């Protein structure tokens, strides 16, 4: 086996050294009855690299890669061009095959990167402090809710969710709330040109620990975060802003600037790639430094070494499970380190100049697409405002239309029926996302194909 360095000669010598006559001697503690006496049934014996690669390639070819079709899907996962140098860097063995930086003297590479990452995220979100990443946006969202409950010390148990929060995110929060004592308020969205901020504000009361608002929301619309923040704060509640498309923040104001107390989101759009849903990158930041000790997840902080040189360490670990066990702020252990690296490298390559230009290009193309789609008979654009994603109504079940367009080789968007299967009134709506990876020719191909299917 190409991955196992021990030879039979080594094994013999080592068994001698440990005083065992056979390998079975080392498994004596396993009850006889439970020992497997033969190989796993059905699993072939070890296979050469070429054979495995062929098998996996065959499976991969059964998927339609986004690059091979005009592509307009978003809804929480965004396709952007990732510079080749990003993948080159994350494949450096020293990053790829390192562990969590528990020994900081020999992990400054990961630690300095995390410190830079935390700073980038904090600035992007308009916050004071960001952590070293979470699993993904949806779990970060729930961790934020849990954190708000902790801050409310269990005295406020109502969590107000915007109806235009990504339904997977909302479902994760609801799932977890079943097992805590949080009460969740909020429903499915209405197809209005702008989010109904008034209705949301109406749900906030003195029992509310936090309000969760997605920005841009799942329909691509831009809620008035500043107004909601004001209302939440007036009621003594925290505003949790959720962002699933960080590129948007190159064009629109940051949630922190607008008053959100906790900002969480999905970082996948920068550097990570689609990957059929994972691994992704949860971002988590707080506007006010005072909330740091209530945060979940790892934090990297600056310090000095014995020679007085600047260095970085994981810090404030008294919040974490390996120290505090059942009293920890979260059970989270693993973060999304390599994805954080990819994000940070891509963000460094972009910089202020690149990010704002990228955001402008996304918005330009999305506006063009909206204008052109609106000209198709039977199609109307819902959104009053949007960044690179908007909702259109097409007068029939969008799920069928999406499938038909896929047959024609166009990946047209995400149907609201897929996202909100229980809400029939949403089923004629389609979420269309346009990034820099779609040229104007792709937009025209989408329009032509949609026109054809609808006619």
């Amino acid at each position: 086996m190409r991955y196992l360095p021990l030879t039979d000669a080594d094994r013999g010598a080592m068994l001698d050294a440990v005083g065992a006559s056979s390998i079975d001697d080392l498994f004596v503690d396993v009850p006889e009855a439970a020992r497997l006496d033969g190989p796993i049934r059905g699993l072939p014996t070890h296979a050469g690299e070429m054979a495995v690669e062929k098998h996996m390639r065959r499976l991969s070819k059964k998927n339609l890669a986004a690059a091979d079709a005009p592509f307009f899907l978003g809804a929480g996962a965004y396709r952007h061009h990732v510079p080749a140098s990003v993948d080159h860097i994350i494949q450096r063995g020293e990053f790829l095959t390192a562990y969590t930086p528990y020994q900081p003297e020999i992990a400054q590479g990961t630690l300095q990167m995390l410190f830079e990452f935390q700073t980038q995220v904090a600035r992007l979100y308009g916050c004071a402090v960001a952590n070293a990443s979470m699993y993904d946006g949806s779990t970060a969202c729930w961790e934020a809710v849990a954190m708000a409950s902790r801050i409310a010390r269990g005295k406020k148990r109502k969590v107000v969710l915007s109806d235009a929060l990504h339904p997977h995110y909302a479902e994760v929060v609801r799932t977890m709330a079943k097992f805590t004592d949080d009460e969740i308020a909020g429903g499915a969205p209405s197809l209005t040109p702008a989010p109904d901020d008034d209705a949301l504000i109406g749900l906030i009361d003195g029992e509310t620990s936090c309000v969760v608002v997605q920005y841009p929301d799942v329909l691509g619309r831009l809620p008035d975060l500043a107004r909601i923040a004001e209302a939440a704060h007036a009621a003594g509640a925290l505003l949790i802003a959720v962002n699933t498309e960080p590129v948007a923040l190159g064009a629109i104001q940051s949630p922190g600037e607008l008053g959100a107390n906790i900002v969480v989101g999905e970082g996948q759009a920068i550097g990570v790639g689609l990957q059929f849903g994972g691994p992704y990158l949860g971002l988590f930041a707080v506007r006010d430094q005072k909330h740091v000790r209530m945060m979940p997840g790892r934090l990297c902080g600056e310090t000095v070494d014995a020679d007085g040189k600047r260095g970085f360490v994981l810090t404030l670990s008294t919040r974490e499970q390996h120290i505090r066990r059942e009293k920890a702020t979260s059970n989270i252990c693993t973060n999304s380190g390599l994805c954080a690296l990819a994000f940070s490298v891509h963000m460094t390559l972009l910089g202020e100049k690149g990010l704002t230009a990228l955001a402008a290009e996304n918005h330009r193309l999305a506006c063009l697409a909206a204008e052109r789609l609106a000209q198709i008979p039977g199609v109307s654009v819902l959104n009053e405002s949007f960044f690179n994603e908007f909702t259109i109504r097409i007068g029939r079940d969008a799920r069928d239309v999406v499938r038909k367009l896929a047959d024609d080789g166009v990946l047209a968007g995400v149907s609201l029926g897929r996202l909100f299967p229980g809400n029939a009134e949403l089923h004629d709506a389609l979420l269309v996302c346009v990034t820099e990876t779609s040229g104007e020719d792709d937009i025209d191909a989408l329009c032509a194909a949609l026109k054809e299917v609808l006619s």
Partner: protein
Amino acid sequence: LEEPLIFETGSLDRTGVDLTFPGQMDLAGVDAAAPVRSEPSASKLGKFARKEAIGLPGLTEPETVRHYTRLSRQNYAIDLGLFPLGSCTMKHNPRLNEKVARMPGFADVHPLQPVETVRGALEVINELAFWLIELTGMHSVAMSPKAGAHGELCGILCIRAALEARGDARKVVLVPESAHGTNPATAAFAGYEIEDIPANSDGRVDFDALKSRLGPDVAGVMITNPSTLGLFERDLKAISDAVHEAGGFVYCDGANFNAIVGKVRPGDLGVDAMHINLHKTFSTPHGGGGPGSGPVVLSEALSPFAPLPYAARTADGTVHLVEEESADSFAQEHFGKTLQSFGRMTAFHGQMGMFTRALTYILSHGSDGLRQVAEDAVLNANYVLRQLEDVLHAPFAHSGPCMHEALFGDKGFAEGLSTLDLAKGLIDEGFHPMTMYFPLVVHGAMLVEPTETESKAALDQFIGALRSVAERAKAGDETLKTAPHYAPRARLDETLAARKPVLAWNGEVAPSGTPVPSEIGGQ
């Protein structure tokens, strides 16, 4: 040369990304049409448009590559040497796995594409699920948990859902003292009270004590097997039977599954739920802290409560992605019952990028290779244990062989020298230290897990180094207290970091040009 922060070298006007498109080429025979560039009639950002700079520094590609290449060289990694962190299973990451995960059909696929366009991705999930079930002897597997602790939560929530479904509101989860911190944290997160289970003199769970604690308030036990002491829980089957009899469930922390893969199936020991750290046993790269992936295998009793989405195989052998949209009708049609899923743990379908790697790993090793993995991992750990027990205190060495990791304590160290000092001294010998001060039940614990991908030569070198440092610790070598001396940094002040937390760079990024060197480091 010290590597500055990107904030100290970058500026707002510098970038490593061009968004420009070329004009038409004047090259006979090349049909490069000039891309059209139209402007929309209006922006749709309205009053939300950004008004101020974010403060993000940019670097060009050469600067970026150099910055991160230099940073990387301050890291230790498996690619550089043995990484004996106990309970972390830091084994070699095959490069084929990286290549496969990057195939466009896996890497460039959106999770919400129509099912017809992602058949291959679903087959990967199905194949992997199939082998995880076979390897553990369980009934089903929830694929979506994002890491080990997330998997634990999944398992505990399945238990809670199952209990609630029968109207049984139990309150307590029993956890051994030697457990990973994630175990009690998870159970607490799921709303349970935690009670410790004591250990016996052999380092195993005290079966009698456990048994006497069982009762109608105990939802279940969380047991790590092999344990964090590196020992196989001999009584696990008896424990499971007792817990089941008392109406509870058995959660097994599968962090150490590497020691027994292909040799024993947890399902045969009565386990109801176990997470599998794909980044440990199935070698998806740890990446400096993640991403992980923690699928949870479930017994028949818990299967109906698994979270959405899941990939379910039906009688005809085909695979179906079951999401909220189709869950109820699917369950009715194929299994004749309503879905009892406790909900959704994450957006989308889980760590696909880890699934492709893990499946590649399983197929590469095959049935013979996986058994050999466990055997070599255990042999390597025992070799370390027996070569060092004369110089380091090995509290449970008397009880027989260890499994995948060897546990030592600091007994015998000279006054004033600690496990931490020994660990830092090991850095100067060119090795990453072992896990320190865990498990908590052993004073100054040192937990060494070599894994099966270390050669005998590498082990011998490591043993020699550890022996030498241990002898110095026993002899009272004071230079250990200031170790490491040959690392990128001397010992770092962790207290200062926690007392005055600096968690972000707070300076201003230069608007243009290259910041002059005197400013660098001048935060």
